[in-house]
């Protein structure tokens, strides 16, 4: 088993500086570090291997061309990249939904509603960022079932508050309250994640 690579905050800053300077090797290093997470996230949202790989490509193109838009003062590099990946994945999902509203892919995607997020298998522990993965899972597990459900529908399916309320047959105000409470708990639980450590 190879030992996981480390991506400290300093390492992220260094990578970011090199990317902004146009260092192409830095992009390769970034790929080695975060591509497994981007691919995993995209795959979880779009449920299609080819589309997920397309999203990975889109994300790295955007990162390379728009790295100047990342404000290091507002947060680390990795969450910024993950948010790009999520948005790209949801865009792909929405495009597909428009054309294939009744596809089998959606049936699979809706399994998220049931809390189909499981921690990675042990062999994935070699992937850089593994400890963060565990931390985030722990923070999610600390939420109530209802809160977890609305968070997952919002994050992985990109549903609006109203759509979540319709999906869960809950009042809109209840959904908003659950999401607000969940975000507060997650923010509190992940506040210490300023670094990405082994």
């Amino acid at each position: 088993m190879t030992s996981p690579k480390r991506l400290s905050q300093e390492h992220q800053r260094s990578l970011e500086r090199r990317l902004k300077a146009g260092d192409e090797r830095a992009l390769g290093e970034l790929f080695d570090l975060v591509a497994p997470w981007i691919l995993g996230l995209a795959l979880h949202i779009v449920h299609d291997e080819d589309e997920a790989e397309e999203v990975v490509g889109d994300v790295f193109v955007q990162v390379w061309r728009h790295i100047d838009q990342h404000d290091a003062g507002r947060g680390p590099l990795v969450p910024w990249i993950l948010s790009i990946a999520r948005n790209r994945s949801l865009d792909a999902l929405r495009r597909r939904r428009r054309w294939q509203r009744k596809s089998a892919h959606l049936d699979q995607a809706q399994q998220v509603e049931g809390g189909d997020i499981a921690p990675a298998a042990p062999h994935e522990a070699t992937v850089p960022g593994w400890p963060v993965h565990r931390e985030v899972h722990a923070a999610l597990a600390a939420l109530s079932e209802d809160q977890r459900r609305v968070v997952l529908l919002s994050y992985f399916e990109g549903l609006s508050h109203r759509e979540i309320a319709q999906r869960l047959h809950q009042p809109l105000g209840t959904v908003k309250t659950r999401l607000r409470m969940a975000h507060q708990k997650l923010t509190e639980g992940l506040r210490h994640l300023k670094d990405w450590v082994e």
Partner: protein
Amino acid sequence: MTDWLGMLATPRSPHPELKGRVLARALAPRWRWRGPLAAAALLTLAVAGGAWWAYRTIGTLTSERDGLVARVEALEDTVASFIHGPATRLIQIPVSTGGRVGSVTIFADSVRHRWLVRCDGLAPNASDQAYQLWFITDQGMATAAVMPMDQDKPMVMAVEMPRGGGEGGLAEQRVLGAAMSIEPRAGSVRPSGPMVFHRLL
């Protein structure tokens, strides 16, 4: 902090070739828009050029049309004044040039002091010659017009009759007749070439 939720998903090791593909795509020169942009620029240029050309052409044609309209109106006016003028005399003179028989028709308007001359069937001139029309006056021959004729087709022109006298201090010239001779291309002060016709009115 919810941005970290992206790491909830199970990481997936990408296929080995994906890295090469992704990096090649990201690092590829951004030429994608240059082709379409260049095409759009060329198209814009072509459209603008076409519009400019059309504007210029329309302007030129409009100007030519206006000029032609003015000339036609002037000609109509001239012809009408000759035809309908009560003081107009019509003189038709048979002529023979280059072995051909033709005619010179003169509408002489003594009120407006103008002649309208139509020449039919005149042989075309040599390249260094021209027909020259003369007024026969009581003071001698006065040039009326030089008419180089290069094509075998009728010719019409209006000429002003000599008035003389008055302001110029010259004695009044009375037109007694008309003559036509073949002269050098630039015309002559006095008839010097073969006479086509000489006719007192």
